[in-house]
């Protein structure tokens, strides 16, 4: 139905002069019809709603420009096709069936539909389809009118989404109007305060304020009116059951679309748990602080780079500071105040300090440190132990160090060692004079031939020797204990030592005969005097513990990697249960009768330690009543 510009308008017709009235009537009718048609046409073409017309089968015959704009399809692309072209794919066939059935029955169909544009975008329309009838009443066409409500729908979706977020948030969220009347209330608020939505909407918000905080409301509202928010405000609120809650609230003004403040929204979080935990934490920290500050040991905590995080009072004091704060301010100062030395009192590199070793990657480290206060000259000893603390990724998170002041202990040890050293020296001095005088007497009486006197003097000399040995043993024991037994190692002939020692002991052993068996020339590396001491001890014991027996046998056996010397006696023997213990310090064998054997019980201890220092072994084989054989082995070293 095209219009041509040549068709006259009603105005024009009215202006034509001399028109016969019947022609004028016809022309006017046409012109009016044309104008009305033109109006309808303009309406359809210029409306913002999409309009399309289909035939009875649904094939599109006409679409208006709004349709083209909305769907992205040009009229040539859609004319001759069905609306399937804009199907979104979101609806079941059944829906379309319902649509058809409705419109075919002559009723208009109205609904909100989602369709798809040419570029794939989805859009919402408020859709109405009506059947067009001819004069006979038969349906000839369908006309569909769409109102694009995409924006509205999107806004609606957004609103719904936000509402869900608010409703199901873990924080209590509610809003009130400018006068404080509660307008909305989410699930969390119901849970926190105990009021249901229906109970509280419409009530004033100060129902939630404890009695002594009612004026908080005024303060909050003043802030709102100024357009300012109140953020993370810690306060008390009251539940429905009157129980008080510690909460943190954030309140913001709510504005309408014109920007006017119409109310406020509140978010509240119950922080009673948090506050409780904070209090617990504070109390634990205080307790820990108390414990740490009263500890005698110094404790320091450093970060992996060595920066000091914490030091207790004891640590600060040891380092020469008056307080932990002073230490924190100047953590490296103590290095200038002290000279740091190792356990031998030799200057020590700071990188050997245990905490520095942990910083370099070690798991744990310990060192005995000697340090001297440069100003006062005071010398102290400490055992410093450092360990690392790891985080979840097994990386060093902290370096923890414990400093144990052992000054008193060390000095006591040193005084003890010194004492024993001095004591043995002091004891030997009068013994020396005693011995000399005894021997002078011996010489004098030898000239006169006084047998009895000589015999007694000989006994005195023997006892002085016993005393000398006891003093020597005491000193040896103390040296062994403090790890200071020094060996003078060299190559020597073991067989020679054996022979000489046997000779010496035999001199004073009247009742026994010491027999040597299988003694072959053998060079060994060690302390000659100490090995002789061991052999002397074994021979002396053999004689002592076999009174009335006549023989003691010394033999030697050489294997591939060691030489074994044995001393055998036929005396009282040793019970199996004693056999290991006899090598212990001060262990003495007691008999049932009141027979005790003289001696301090140190000989075997010292001998076993000497042999051990030579990397050898010492052991015994014995049957009680039948005697004992003591063995010691020395390794044969391949040194030439």
């Amino acid at each position, binding site marked *: 139905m095209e219009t041509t510009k040549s068709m006259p308008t009603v105005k024009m017709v009215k202006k034509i002069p001399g028109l016969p009235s019947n022609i004028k009537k016809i022309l006017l009718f046409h012109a009016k019809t044309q104008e009305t048609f033109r109006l309808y046409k303009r309406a359809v073409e210029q409306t913002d709603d999409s309009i399309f017309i289909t035939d009875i089968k649904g094939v599109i015959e006409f679409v208006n420009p709004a349709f083209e704009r909305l769907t992205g399809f040009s009229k040539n692309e859609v004319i001759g096709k069905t609306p399937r072209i804009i199907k979104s794919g979101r609806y079941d066939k059944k829906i379309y069936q319902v649509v058809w059935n409705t419109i075919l029955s002559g009723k208009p169909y109205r609904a909100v539909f989602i369709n798809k544009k040419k570029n794939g975008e989805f859009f919402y329309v408020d859709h109405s389809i009506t059947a067009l009838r001819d004069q006979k009443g038969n349906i000839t066409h369908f006309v569909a009118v769409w109102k694009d409500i995409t924006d509205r729908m999107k806004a609606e979706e957004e609103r719904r989404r936000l509402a869900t977020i608010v409703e199901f948030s873990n924080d209590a969220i509610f809003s009130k109007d400018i006068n404080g009347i509660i307008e909305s209330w989410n699930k969390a608020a119901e849970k926190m305060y105990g009021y249901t939505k229906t109970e509280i909407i419409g009530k004033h918000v100060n129902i939630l304020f404890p009695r002594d905080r009612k004026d908080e409301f005024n303060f909050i509202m003043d802030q709102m009116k100024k357009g300012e928010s109140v953020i993370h405000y810690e306060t008390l609120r009251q539940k429905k059951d009157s129980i008080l809650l510690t909460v943190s609230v954030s309140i913001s003004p709510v504005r309408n679309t014109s920007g006017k403040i119409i109310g406020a929204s509140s978010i509240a979080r119950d922080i009673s748990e948090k506050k409780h935990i904070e209090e617990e934490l504070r109390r634990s920290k205080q307790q820990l602080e108390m414990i740490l500050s009263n500890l005698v040991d110094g404790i320091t905590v450093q970060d992996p780079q060595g920066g000091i995080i914490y030091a207790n009072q004891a640590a600060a004091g040891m380092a020469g500071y008056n307080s932990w704060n002073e230490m924190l301010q100047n953590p490296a100062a103590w290095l200038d105040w002290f000279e740091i030395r190792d356990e031998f009192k030799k200057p020590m590199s700071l990188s050997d300090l245990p905490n520095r070793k942990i910083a370099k990657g070690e798991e744990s480290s310990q060192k005995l440190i000697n340090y001297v206060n440069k100003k006062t000259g005071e010398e102290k000893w400490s055992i410093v132990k450092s360990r690392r603390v790891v985080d979840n990724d097994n990386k060093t998170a902290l370096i923890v160090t414990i400093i144990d002041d052992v000054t008193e202990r060390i000095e006591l040890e040193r005084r003890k060692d010194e004492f024993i050293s001095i004591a*043995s*020296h002091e004891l*030997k*001095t*009068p*013994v*020396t*004079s*005693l*011995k*000399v*005088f005894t*021997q*002078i007497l011996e*010489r*004098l009486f030898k000239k006169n031939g006084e047998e009895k006197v000589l015999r007694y003097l000989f006994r005195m000399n023997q006892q*002085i020797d016993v005393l*000398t040995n006891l003093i020597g043993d005491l*000193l040896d024991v103390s040296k062994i204990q403090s790890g200071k037994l*020094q060996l*003078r190692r060299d190559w020597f002939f073991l067989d020679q030592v054996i022979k000489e020692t046997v000779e010496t002991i035999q001199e004073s052993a009247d009742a026994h005969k010491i027999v040597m068996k299988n003694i072959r020339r053998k060079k060994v590396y060690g302390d000659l005097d100490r090995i002789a001491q061991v052999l002397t001890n074994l021979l002396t014991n053999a004689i002592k513990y076999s009174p009335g027996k006549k023989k003691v046998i010394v033999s030697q056996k050489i294997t591939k990697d060691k030489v074994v010397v044995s001393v055998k006696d036929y005396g009282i023997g040793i019970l199996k249960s004693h056999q290991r213990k006899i090598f212990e310090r001060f262990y003495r064998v007691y008999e049932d009768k009141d027979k005790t054997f003289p001696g301090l019980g140190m000989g075997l201890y010292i001998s076993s330690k000497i042999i051990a220092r030579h990397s050898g072994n010492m052991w015994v084989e014995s049957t009680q009543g039948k005697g004992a054989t003591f063995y010691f082995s020395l390794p044969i070293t391949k040194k030439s």
Partner: protein
Amino acid sequence: MKKILILDDDPGILEALRIAVETEGYDVKTEGEPANLVKKVRIYKPDIILLDLLLSGFDGTVIVRELKKNKDTKNIPVVILSAHPTAKKSAEEAGADDFVAKPFDVDTLFAVIEKHID
């Protein structure tokens, strides 16, 4: 008669040794103090010197070194007597001619004296 100089800080030992050595037929001079010993040695001119290393806090090796440095005294044999076990090494290092550990047998001492006195 051969002369022996004995230096020890213990009067008991000095007395015992003096009697022992005199009985054996030597001339003896005993000293209890380390002070001016080199001077005294130059004056007395002993044939052998017996001395203890630890003389009441004074280190005897100092004297030994002095004696061995001085041209008048360096040829006099010096025998160290000591109760201290590590003294033997110090004695050797200081230049002493021999060492006898205390307490000793008088016979042992005389053997050592006779060994060095010529």
